[in-house]
C-alpha cells in the first residue's frame, strides 16, 4: 500500500461546463484557460499541493485530451512522487460492460480501486470549477477534531442567491442539522462549496450502498449527504470566508478574470506562500514594441505587443499587431490579433486568428465570445 498518508484527494473534472458555450466546445471546463496562463484546474491542484496532499485522482470524462495533456504526471504542481502523484481516472470497461460516470458519487464509486490502493484515513473530494485559495489541511484538522463522518466546506452567500446552491442548516457546534439541494425557500444562507472530506471507511460503505440503490441518482448532494444525515451521522460544516467564485458562466468567468486587472484585486495571483502553479509551455519573454500603447494590461509569457490595449488580459504567446485595438477583453493563449482589428468586451479563444480589420464585440449587452481554433476573416464584424 505504500507510505501511510493522512488524506488523498479526488478531483471531479469530467464536467462539460455547458454554460461556458464556445469555450468548452472542445475542452473540459477544468482545462479552460484562466488569467491568460493558468487553467481552471490549477486552483484545486495548487490548493492540494499547498496543503501537503501529494496524491490526487483526477476523474475525467468530457473531452479529456487537453486536460490529460495539461495535467500530465503532475510535475508542474510537484506531484511527481514515488508513492503518490496524479492519477487520471477515466470511465472504463468491465467484464459486464462499461458506462459513463452517472453522477459524482458513481464516479468515485467506480474508482474504489484508487481509494483502496492508498493507505489513507481520509478522502478529500473536490470539483475543479472554482477560483479560490484554501488550505485543505485546516479543514482536515477540523474534521478530525470533530470526529465527523463527513465535513462539508461552506460559506455564506447572499440570501437571494441561496436557492442556487446546496444549503445547510447547522447547530452552534457547526454540526449540520439539515441539507437541502437548491431549495426554493432556503432556511439558511450557508452554501455547500462542493468540497467534502470523508472518513474513508465510511465513504466506501456509503458508496457501495448507494451503488446498489436503483432509485439513487448517485450524487453527493442529492443522495450521499442526505442519507448520512438521515442515519444520524455526524456531518460537520467547515466555514470558509475567503474569496470563492464559480467560473461556470460566461459572465462570472469574464468578471473573475477581469478583476485581476484591479489595483487591489479581491483574488490576487500573487502570493508567495500559497502560489498558484501552472503547467505552461516554454515561451520567450514578453516583448512590448515601439508602437504599443498599454493602459492597465496583464501580459503573459511569449506575447509580442505592437497594438493598443486597454484594461485587458493577453494570454501566453499572443501576438497583437500594429494598429490593433483591444479594450476590456480577455485574449486566451496563442492567439493572433492582426493589424487594425478592434475588439471590445470580448473573450477570444485559444489559438484563434483574428484577421486584419475585423470588428469584435459591443460596449453593452452580452459579452462576445469567439471560440478556440477559429479564424475570423478579414474585415468581418462579430458584434
Amino acid at each position, binding site marked *: 500500500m505504500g507510505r501511510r498518508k493522512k488524506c488523498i484527494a479526488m478531483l471531479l473534472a469530467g464536467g462539460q461546463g455547458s454554460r461556458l458555450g464556445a469555450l468548452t466546445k472542445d475542452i473540459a471546463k477544468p482545462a479552460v484557460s484562466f488569467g491568460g496562463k493558468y487553467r481552471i484546474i490549477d486552483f484545486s491542484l495548487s490548493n492540494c499541493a499547498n496543503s501537503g496532499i501529494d496524491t490526487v485522482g483526477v476523474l475525467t470524462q468530457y473531452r479529456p485530451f487537453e486536460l490529460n495533456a495539461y495535467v500530465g504526471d503532475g510535475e508542474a504542481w510537484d506531484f511527481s512522487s514515488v508513492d503518490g502523484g496524479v492519477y487520471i481516472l477515466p470511465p472504463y470497461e468491465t467484464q459486464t460492460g462499461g458506462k459513463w460516470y452517472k453522477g459524482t458519487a458513481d464516479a468515485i464509486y467506480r474508482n474504489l480501486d484508487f481509494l483502496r490502493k492508498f493507505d489513507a484515513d481520509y478522502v478529500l473530494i473536490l470539483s475543479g470549477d472554482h477560483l479560490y485559495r484554501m488550505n485543505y489541511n485546516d479543514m482536515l484538522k477540523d474534521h478530525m477534531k470533530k470526529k465527523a463522518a463527513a465535513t462539508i466546506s461552506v460559506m455564506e452567500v447572499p440570501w437571494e442567491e441561496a436557492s442556487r446552491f446546496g444549503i445547510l442548516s447547522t447547530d452552534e457546534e457547526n454540526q449540520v442539522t439539515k441539507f437541502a439541494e437548491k431549495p426554493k425557500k432556503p432556511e439558511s444562507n450557508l452554501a455547500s462549496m462542493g468540497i467534502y472530506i470523508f472518513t474513508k471507511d465510511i465513504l466506501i460503505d456509503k458508496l457501495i450502498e448507494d451503488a446498489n440503490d436503483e432509485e439513487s441518482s448517485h450524487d453527493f448532494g442529492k443522495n450521499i449527504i442526505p442519507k448520512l444525515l438521515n442515519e444520524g451521522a455526524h456531518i460537520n460544516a467547515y466555514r470558509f470566508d475567503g474569496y470563492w467564485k464559480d467560473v461556470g458562466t460566461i459572465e462570472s468567468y469574464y468578471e473573475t478574470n477581469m478583476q485581476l486587472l484591479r489595483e487591489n484585486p479581491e483574488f490576487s495571483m500573487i502570493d508567495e506562500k500559497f502560489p498558484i502553479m501552472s503547467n505552461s509551455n516554454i515561451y520567450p519573454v514578453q516583448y512590448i*514594441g515601439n508602437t504599443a500603447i498599454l493602459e492597465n494590461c496583464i501580459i503573459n509569457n511569449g506575447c509580442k505587443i505592437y497594438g493598443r490595449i486597454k484594461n485587458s488580459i493577453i494570454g501566453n504567446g499572443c501576438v497583437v499587431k500594429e494598429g490593433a485595438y483591444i479594450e476590456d477583453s480577455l485574449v486566451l493563449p496563442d492567439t493572433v490579433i492582426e493589424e487594425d482589428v478592434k475588439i471590445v468586451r470580448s473573450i477570444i479563444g485559444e489559438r484563434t486568428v483574428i484577421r486584419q480589420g475585423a470588428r469584435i464585440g459591443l460596449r453593452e449587452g452580452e459579452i462576445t465570445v469567439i471560440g478556440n481554433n477559429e479564424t475570423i476573416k478579414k474585415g468581418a464584424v462579430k458584434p
Partner: protein
Amino acid sequence: MKEVIGLISANYGTNDMQRLSDERSIASMPFGGRYRLIDFALSNMINSGITAVGLITPYKFRSLLDHIGTGSAWMLDRKKGGLYILPGTTYGMSDKSDRFLLCDMRQNDVYFHRTNAEYVLCTSSNIVCNMDYTPLIEAHTESGADITMVTKIAERNNKYIKKVLVEDGQVTGVKPGVMRGELAFLDSFIIRRELLIQFMEWYSVKEYMDIFDILRKDYKRMDIRTWNYDGYVREIFSVKDYYNTNMELLDMDINGTLFNEQMPIRTKVQDCVPAHVYPQAKVKNSLISSGCLIRGEVENSVLFRGVTIEEGAVVRDSIIMQSSVIKGGAIVKNAVIDRNNLIGSDMVIKGSDEDIYVMLKEQRKAKKMG
C-alpha cells in the same frame, strides 16, 4: 546518425565582468529576462538529439547547479544518458578563460569511458546562439576528420576568441585573439571519443592547458577541419558583451532566430504571475518578464522576473535583474542592475554606451514583494 555525447565546459571566467561573475560563473549569468547563459548550450544539445550531456562545473557552482537541478527542464533527467555533473579542477579559477582544459576532462575520464558513443561534442557555456549541431555531426562523420571545429568570420575584434588558421581546408593552428574579418573559433567542436581519450594519455604532462593550445605542434599531423556557422552567435566575456547582447534581443529579427518554437531554448521553470502594466506606465521597445509590476517609464530595456518599476521612475537602455525595485523619481540609464536591488527615489544612475554602470546584487536590498 552515430551516437554522440555532449560536453559543456563551465569552468572558466574572465576579468571583464566587473564582478558580476564574482559569486556566479559566467555560465549562470542571467540573460534576456528569464534565461541563464548555460540554457543555450544545454538546449542546443538536446535540440540536436544529444541526450547524454556532461557538465564541467566551475569552482563557484552553487547558482549553476541551483538553476540546472536534475536537468529536467532540458529533459535530461533520464535513465539512459542524461545529465552528468563533472567537477572541474581548480585550474579553472585562474582568469585565463581557457574553455577546454585537459585536466578537467582527465579528472572526469570515467564519463568518456563509460559510454559507447563514437563522438563527443564539446561546447562552451557563455555562447548565445540557437545552433543545430546535426549538420556539424554529419559533416564530421562523413569527412572522417579527427576534429571538426565550428567557426565563423569574426564580426568584431575579441581578445578572448581564438583565431583559426586554415590551409587547404585543414586547420594548421590557432592563435589567441581574433580581429574582425578573420576566422573565429566558436568554442564548439566534435571529436572522436577514442581520440579524446588518447589525448588524455599523450598530453598528460600539459593537462593544465587548453586542448587547442596543447595541440600547437601537432595540428599539421592531424586531420582537423572547420565547419562554418552562419547564424547569429555571441560569446559573453565582458560587461560590454553582456549588455550589448541583451540589448540585441530587442531586435525582433534576432530575438526570433534565438527563440522559436521549433528549436526552443529551455530554462528552469518558475511559477510567476503575468506581467502587469498599470495605467500610469509607459513601456516602449522592452522585454518585460512575468512577475513585473510596471507603473513607471521603461524604454529600450530588459526587465527580469519580478521587477517593480514605480510610478515616476524612468528606466532607459538598461538591464534590471530579478526582484529589483525602482522607486518613483529614480532615473536609471545605461545600467546593469543585478538582482534584489532597491533604487531609491533620490537616485540617478547614469552610465553611457561606452561605460555601462554596474550595480552588483543586493547592494541596497529590495524588500521581498508579497
